[in-house]
């Protein structure tokens, strides 16, 4: 009887374990057939985790890559952006990440969870000098490159040319940023006050400067100090001008903005200028038939360097991939052919400005040409670990300034120790990664 009972218990245990295992039966990028680590023409399945919303791009990318690499099947899993880092973190902890993913968290590079691509870049002779350097900052760590991308997302100043013409104000330059004071003057000039909210035209949207301005306005060059930077006189002036635009009615209040949304206001012709990202703004402006232009965001004061915050899809290869060579091959494909497909399929700006077709994309309109010019000014950024969490108290500080509860200097002085504490904690967490 005993052996029979042992078999029954083992069977039950096996059933439970099977029930608790991944339903697709795959492991570490395996194809479910038990065949792993196959190269040289053997069938290989690569897994890629990415954000949702690439309905046009992904199917073509997969089709073209598989056509070029007949032995490789690409499986793309779309994951909501909010949960993405958590999902990758837990997959890494469980030892089951995909072969490739969007590597937005540089701590994954430091932890050795992502493979460097230097050998691939050299072998494929990929010239990174024509890639957007600010976006590529997110792919670099300790002189190594860990990821490549296919598009450029960039924070720029978009404006409505008709509203500028109506006010008789010259268009902003695509290469020379306005100072914050010049920006405020223009915003006041192009505003069209009206008691009827639906007919009002605001000069701009009073966005909190910390998310679009050069991080050097808020942090030291090594990214370790914020006190004395985020609350120095020029930065306080930056906040004073932006919050003043809201208080003076040249920019919508937070609640008006929250309900209506920047792109809606800009594309509806109710805002003359807005600091926004090219991926959303261009689509909204063109769909609504607005004659638009683009320029770099304003700078703190005359002589300050131009800054264009940029990003890309940052696809890298996870170190535990059993098909690392094939996965690197895919990243190289994305970083080269993928850039061409971005233009062809998604009508978006590629990461590499030298991509064939980029000039054609820019020639579609003056606005697009200006986007190309402005984006070309992007340069490497200061690294601040956990930037969004570190700077989160500044949202409240900015609200207090806009509401007139505190002066910008008071609000920034009040927030500086908190942001510095957050920064110290973020560096401590960063340094604990090994």
């Amino acid at each position, binding site marked *: 009887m005993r052996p029979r*009972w042992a078999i*029954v*218990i083992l069977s*039950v*245990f096996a*059933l*439970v374990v099977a029930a*608790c295992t991944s339903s697709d039966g795959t492991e570490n990028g395996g194809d479910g057939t038990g065949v792993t680590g196959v190269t040289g023409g053997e069938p290989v399945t690569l897994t890629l985790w990415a954000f949702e919303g690439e309905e046009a791009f992904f199917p073509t990318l997969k089709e073209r890559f598989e056509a070029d690499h007949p032995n490789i099947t690409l499986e793309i899993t779309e994951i909501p952006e909010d949960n993405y*880092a*958590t999902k990758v*973190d*837990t997959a*890494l*902890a469980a030892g089951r990440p995909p072969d490739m993913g969007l590597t937005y968290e540089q*701590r*994954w590079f430091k*932890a050795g*969870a992502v493979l460097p691509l230097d050998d691939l870049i050299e072998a494929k002779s990929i010239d990174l000098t024509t890639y957007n350097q600010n976006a590529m900052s997110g792919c670099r760590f300790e002189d190594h490159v860990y990821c490549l991308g296919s598009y450029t997302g960039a924070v720029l100043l978009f404006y409505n040319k008709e509203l500028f013409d109506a006010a008789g104000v010259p268009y902003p330059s695509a290469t020379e940023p306005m100072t914050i004071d010049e920006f405020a003057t223009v915003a006041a000039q192009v505003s069209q006050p009206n008691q009827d909210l639906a007919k009002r035209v605001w000069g701009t949207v009073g966005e909190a400067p910390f998310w679009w301005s050069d991080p050097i306005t808020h942090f030291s060059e090594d990214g370790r100090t914020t006190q004395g930077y985020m609350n120095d006189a020029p930065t306080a002036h930056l906040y004073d001008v932006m919050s003043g635009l809201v208080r003076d009615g040249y920019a919508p*209040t*937070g*609640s*008006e903005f*929250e*309900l209506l949304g920047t792109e809606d206001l800009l594309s509806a012709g109710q805002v003359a200028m807005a600091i926004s990202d090219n991926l959303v703004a261009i689509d909204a402006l063109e769909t609504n038939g607005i004659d638009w232009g683009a320029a770099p965001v304003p700078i703190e004061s005359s002589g300050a360097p131009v800054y264009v915050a940029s990003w890309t899809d940052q696809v890298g290869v996870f170190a535990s991939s059993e098909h690392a060579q094939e996965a690197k091959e895919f990243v190289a494909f994305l970083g080269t052919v993928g850039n061409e497909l971005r233009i062809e399929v998604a009508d978006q700006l590629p990461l590499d400005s030298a991509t064939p077709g980029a000039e054609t994309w820019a020639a579609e309109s003056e606005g697009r040409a200006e986007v190309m010019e402005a984006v070309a000014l992007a340069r490497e950024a200061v690294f601040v670990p*956990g930037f969004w*969490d570190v700077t*989160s*108290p500044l*949202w*409240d500080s900015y*609200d207090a300034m806009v509401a007139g509860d505190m002066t910008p200097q008071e609000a920034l002085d009040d927030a500086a120790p*908190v942001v510095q*504490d957050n920064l110290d*904690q*973020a560096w401590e*967490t960063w340094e*604990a*990664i*090994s």
Partner: protein
Amino acid sequence: MTEPAAARGHGQRPRRTRAARREERAGFLFASPWLIGTLVFLIGPIVASMLLSFTNWNLISDAKWEGLQNYRDMFGDRDFRQSIKVTLFYAILAVPLFQVAGIALATLLNLRLRGMYLFRTILFLPAVLSGVAVAVLWAQMLNPDLGIVNQILRAIGIDDPPRWLQSPSWAVPAVVLMGLWGVGSGAIIYLAGLQNIPPALYQAAKIDGARTWRTFWHITLPLLTPTLLFTLLIGVIGAFQVFDVAYILGGSRGGTRGALLFYVLNMWNEGFRNGRFGYASALAWVLVVVAAIVIILIFRTSSRWVYYESEGDR
């Protein structure tokens, strides 16, 4: 007396038959998926989280033992203090209010009026809506400039209505106000309690000349106390666990000046945003201990204020 008989006389269990043993084994066998699941997915993580609370672990590097450091760090943690303040404020405001509102509503729903079933259904409807949808809806209604709540307040002469979710002092009351909208689910539980009260007691009170308030105070409320104990426990536990509404209305930073930084939201932030899983585990254990103390206190005091009808028969 033979020895086995003596042993039986001293309380030893009688020897089980083979059939009884087989039945016992079969019982364990059928329960084993659940037992294994509990061990692997409940007890295992609980023990792991206890151990992790003594470590510095960021999920992607090896955990480093730090002893009680995480617990010591809480004393100097601004967000920890804020999250305790917010959670306690909410619990003190929401739990009694929801109880009173629930009982009041249930009392009204217990009246014999035409169309009462329709009223009950309508009042229960918010309870079946998704919490996320409700939060998004209320966020728009409570918009300080354009939301319908402040438009009504302005229309009735309140020139400077609260800024609700954008105000550090009004954000928690705004969440409580939203919670009141869903009080119908609690009222249904009270309604079940009310309908279990024997009508004979009300008839006797009526004969004795008791008025409505005395009847409520001396009959309805005492006989509702077991239900009240249940909803109080659920309410307190729920107040300690607020997350989704706070996250949707205030984002991960917990709204304006951390006004909605509830304890569980802060715990989630520390783990999943700041990558401090050891510290987040320590926060979880502090919550468990505090919740356990509060629940034990409620149970200990319940003998003084909870009346079970069967006690009257003793």
